[in-house]
């Protein structure tokens, strides 16, 4: 199923683009409905698609030898998922679907090609992605501070 330009407008990543640009993006996107307790992608596997969460909740987890699988972040509506695909790198985490979820999927190569062809779209998407990555870094830093722990 393909999303509409209106569907994309409801997601922060595309909210500032005009209808025409969103239609071009919608043309290369697909909508996936993901059942609960499934896995969207697995750490270490090659990445090909980029996702934006359109509903539900998807949790990112990593394998640490000697420990249970460790989940460190959950993503919900409007959040970017799987940016490794934009860099052509393997997935750095496993994405578990913990609630029935909906994602908008882009083939990374098609999206990058569109961004190359139209730098205005490319700039907007990369700027939004940069904002989100900056937020993630900030949140990760707070998580590392373990602010609820007792310092001894």
């Amino acid at each position: 199923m393909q999303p509409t330009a209106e569907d994309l407008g409801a997601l922060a990543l595309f909210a500032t683009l005009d209808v025409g640009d969103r239609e071009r993006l919608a043309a290369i996107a697909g909508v996936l409905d993901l059942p609960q307790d499934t896995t969207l992608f697995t750490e270490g596997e090659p990445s090909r698609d980029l996702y934006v969460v359109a509903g539900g909740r998807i949790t990112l987890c990593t394998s640490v030898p000697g420990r249970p699988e460790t989940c460190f972040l959950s993503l919900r509506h409007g959040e970017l998922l799987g940016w490794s695909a934009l860099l052509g790198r393997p997935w750095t985490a496993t994405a578990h679907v913990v609630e029935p979820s909906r994602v908008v999927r882009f083939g990374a190569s098609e999206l990058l090609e569109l961004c190359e062809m139209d730098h205005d779209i490319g700039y907007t998407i990369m700027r939004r992605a940069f904002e989100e990555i900056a937020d993630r870094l900030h949140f990760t830093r707070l998580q590392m501070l373990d602010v609820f722990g007792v310092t001894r």
Partner: protein
Amino acid sequence: MQRLHKRDLQTLFEVLRDEGYAVHGPTVRDGAIVHGPLRSADDLPIGWTDAQGPGQYRLQKDGSSVFDGYVVGPDSPKKQRFPSHETLYVATLRADGKIGFAPNMPSAAEAHVGVRACDLAAMRIQTEVFERGPYVEPRHRSRRERSVVIGVSCTKPGDLCFCASTKTGPRASEGADLVLTEREHDFLVEAITDLGERLVQRLPMNGATEQDAQWLDAAMASAESSMGRELDTEDLPAILFGRLQHPRWAEVADRCLACGSCTSVCPTCFCSTTEDPSSLDAADSSRERLWDSCFTWEHAYIHGGTVRPRVEDRYRQWLTHKVGSWVAQFGTSGCVGCGRCIAWCPVGIDLTEELAALREGEGRAELPERVAPASTVDDDLVPRSCEVIGVTRETHDIVTLDVACSEPFAPGQFSQLSLPGIGEVPISISGARPGIASHTIRAVGATTRALCALSPGTSLGMRGPYGRPWPIDSFVGRPVVVVAGGIGLAPLREAMVRMLARPGDFPHVILLYGTRSPDDAIFTDELDAWERTYSAFEAHHTVDHATPSWKGHIGVVTRLLDEATVPADASAMICGPEIMMRFTVEALGRRGLPDERIWVTLERHMECAVGFCGRCQLGPHFVCKDGPVFSFDQVRMLFGRMGF
């Protein structure tokens, strides 16, 4: 004005003793002039003078018969009204398991002789600290009301004096009952109060003339112009708080030993700590109050560490308080120009020099004006014995104690809970039923661990409630976003209970709750029940570290703040670790909430909870009595800033 011949000064001592006063005043001891008990006028430092400079103090005997040839020593009358070590109460474990608390109150009447204008000003300032409210320290008031003060006007200021700059001298008047000014053969005597007048009636006085009055005016003018130091006091609070990153702070910290000598000799410093010594069987104990210093590491300690870890932080705290935020707190500077902190600093740091250096720079930040309390109430710092009637284990290290309590309280206030011989801690009140106040406690130190180990039927000490509550009535008609981190949910719980009971006033209450792990969450069953019961309530819980079975949000609580959870017209209440609150406030600001609609509750080291111990300061505010709940616009200037 009258004259008293020097040979008749002893009569003053006899009259004071006859009136029932124990006489204290300047006397030579241990190589310094200290404020101590005097048997007669002969105990005064007759013929002694002193040489003072930065880091220097030497007594010299000049062989004269001058009473008033010295300036000031390390002591001041402060220790008479605010003793350096004092028992506040004695606690006894009774046979019935209850705790008996017996207050210790002073009863002696004291005469303070030879008090200079700077120290009279210091006594007035300490009266502002301890008696102007909203809480009044009854020990200080009792000592003040029972005392008589014989002041002395200075005719020969020292090299470190600058009371002319601080407008606290050299002429002694307000605060004294009687003022003496020494001349070659006599004292000029001015009765300031009715008590002073009564004393004069009993002394062998001679009449003074117009020339005597002119001599005094000339002597005071001469003294005023011969001060060894000068200080420009203009605009100091705004200058200091506008220059918190001035390089001078780091420079002076390189020299400062953080020894606390300056605070020990200062006649206005009022910070204190407490200790709880006990007998070996813990049946008898007491609470002892001791002078403390903002230069100690422990002064700003809250569990896990201090908010002022660097010497630079502590020096800046001392100076910004002494001549800056003191004005906002008490309507007066805390410096009286006596120069003691300069003389007794082992490395000779000169306050006047430091302030002149800080004046060279850019930046001003206005502090709020002092608002006088509308009413006052005595607080003797003595707990009442209360019974624990219920214990709920919330998590592996958090316990809720239900304590029998008839005092009314408002959500956001706190109690001081204590166990004799162990200690006292401020604990937020997390809930209430008729006759019961619930306190939710995390075991992080000796006292909280002991409190968490209590069982129903045991007793503890309780003071309070204290502090400013959440202003929930100001939120009426708006959505309310409640952001809690960890045990920070406790002081918010009762506020939510009361808002949910008034759905017409509070149509939407949204709780965003972050904990370290799912197992660290408190009140979870109750929150689930509220979501089922109240349509106005929604809750979102996130954890920093998920367990394998956790299916909820993972990530810091600020990630939950978005357009779905934070309506732009909302008011917000936040409680949690300060860094969490800082980023929550920023996120709320981005959602359009102004600082005035964001309320935070702060944690600082509190010993007394009523503004006497000086430890919980955040710039102009005492977190205990001005907070702990503040609107963010009140605390924005210093919130999250290193060293405050």
